[in-house]
């Protein structure tokens, strides 16, 4: 018996409380520093310390519920939440999240849930890491030379499709006119990934809002957090109901660590330039990506896996 260890009946193992607090603190620090949810880093780290992957993913969703609550409240006070857009993304997210939990349940029975989580990570981290790295490198170079006057852009195929979708409506807070179908579809897409990967979806949702919905940046962060909060509540309840994989004591310890880390990270972040922050984050994302990729292609130590993921 140790005061620094706690038995988690859902994970069926005892964990070092200080180690889990430390993980929360480290991911919270990065999250405060770079303005991302941190779920995409938390789940692999929990797997590395011996939490079964399916419990790690579900518990991380529970942790994000707490982390996004305070953020949503702060942004709501500042008027940075587009509730209409958020609700449509949310409806899509709930449908997608429910579908994602169902997919995980079927794959767990087949014994390939963990493989799917890993493949999702490898693909998403690879794409996002490479994109962020390239973009931040470009903006670092641009900072040195002044850019020429912007060229007039031709309307893309995507823009034409979006304009021709039915049920166009105004989103006052974002200053946009879009079809209600677009946030519904994109919300569902992020919801599926969030359920499978055990992340809030922020690191997918933010680029989706910026590049596909073309929302202003200040509204993106608040609306993303608003949507993530509700999506993760849904994912937490579904995972607890269908898969019995949510360990809320573990989530609570992580939450305490990550909240403190986020405060420290926010203060540290003010001392660095945006481009420097972005390229640092891209390097971390690519490092996690490489680790996950190695896990998929390298010969495992043990050539057996449990069917139920435990």
């Amino acid at each position: 018996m140790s005061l620094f260890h706690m038995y988690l009946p859902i994970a069926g193992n005892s964990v070092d409380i200080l180690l889990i607090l430390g993980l929360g603190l480290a991911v919270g620090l990065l999250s405060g520093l770079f303005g991302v949810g941190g779920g995409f880093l938390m789940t692999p780290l929990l797997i590395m310390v011996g939490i079964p992957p399916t419990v790690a993913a579900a518990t991380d969703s529970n942790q994000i519920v707490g982390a996004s609550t305070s953020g949503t409240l702060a942004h709501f006070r500042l008027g940075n939440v587009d509730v209409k857009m958020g609700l449509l993304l949310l409806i899509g997210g709930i449908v997608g999240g429910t579908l994602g939990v169902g997919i995980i349940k079927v794959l767990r029975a087949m014994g390939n849930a963990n493989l799917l989580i890993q493949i999702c990570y490898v693909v998403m981290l690879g794409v996002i890491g490479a994109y962020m790295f390239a973009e931040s490198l470009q903006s670092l170079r641009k900072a040195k030379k002044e850019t020429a006057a912007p060229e007039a852009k031709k309307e893309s195929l995507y823009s034409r499709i979006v304009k021709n979708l039915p049920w166009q409506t105004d989103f006052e807070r974002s200053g946009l006119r879009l079809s209600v179908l677009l946030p519904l579809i994109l919300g569902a897409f992020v919801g599926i990934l969030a359920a499978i990967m055990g992340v809030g979806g922020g690191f997918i949702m933010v680029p989706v809002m910026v590049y596909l919905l073309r929302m202003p940046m200040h509204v993106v962060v608040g609306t993303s957090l608003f949507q993530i909060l509700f999506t993760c509540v849904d994912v937490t309840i579904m995972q607890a109901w269908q898969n019995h994989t949510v360990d809320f004591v573990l989530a609570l310890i992580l939450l305490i660590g990550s909240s403190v880390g986020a405060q420290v990270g926010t203060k540290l972040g003010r001392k660095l330039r945006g481009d420097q922050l972005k390229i640092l984050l891209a390097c971390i994302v690519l490092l996690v990506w490489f680790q996950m990729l190695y896990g998929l292609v390298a010969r495992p130590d043990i050539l057996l896996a449990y069917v139920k993921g435990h």
Partner: protein
Amino acid sequence: MKIQRFILLAVLSIFSASTAAARDKIGLTLSPQAIGIGTFFNGTTVTATGSVPADSQVVIRFTGDTAPVHMRQKARVGGVVWMNLDSVTFEKAPSVCIVSSAAGFNELETGGGEGLGLAGLRQSVRVKCEGNQKVDVFAEFLKMKKKEGLYREISGNISYGRPADGLKTFRALIPLPSRLKPGTYTVEAVAVQNGGIISRSRQKLVAELRGAPSVMAALAFDHPILYGAIASFIAVIAGLGIGLVFQSKGAH
């Protein structure tokens, strides 16, 4: 007179036989007699004490219930990605198997204790494979269980007292892993002498969830929707509380 002699002989032979039987018998006492898995449980140590014939060695086996374990063999697909493919079932494999011996396990195998160590499980565990066995799946199974800390061979954790009346006392400290699940376990003391097993003694040991883990597991498995809702609610309240404490501007 003949009858009296016969009775005397019979009494003496019964007495000497029972003394020999008593010498061969193993006394076994466990401490604690039940294991509580509470909030701060991080594995525990069970002490097994008793006595064995003075010229024998004792082996202590701590084993869990047997149940089929369903697994899949990992194999490379397309020469690139490792995937879980053919299913394998291990029948009659104990959930936990911790074997303690005063002597080394190589010495034990040659000294009559073969089958008592982990290698001996190969005889009792039945392996059913869906496809071809690409590797020695039993060896992989042992590797996995050892990595989880659920299967162990420990030597040097048993001490003996001074022999008296043909018996010697023993004291074994059995370390149990933090991954211990609630259930009924068996502790078995086996006396090994002159290349064979001369006696065995068994005791049951119950491990049960207590306190917060017990309440949490009951809620999570018996009322999962309520559990999920409570988990979300607590996270929201904690998030609000922490946000207020730090006057958070929502770094997440």
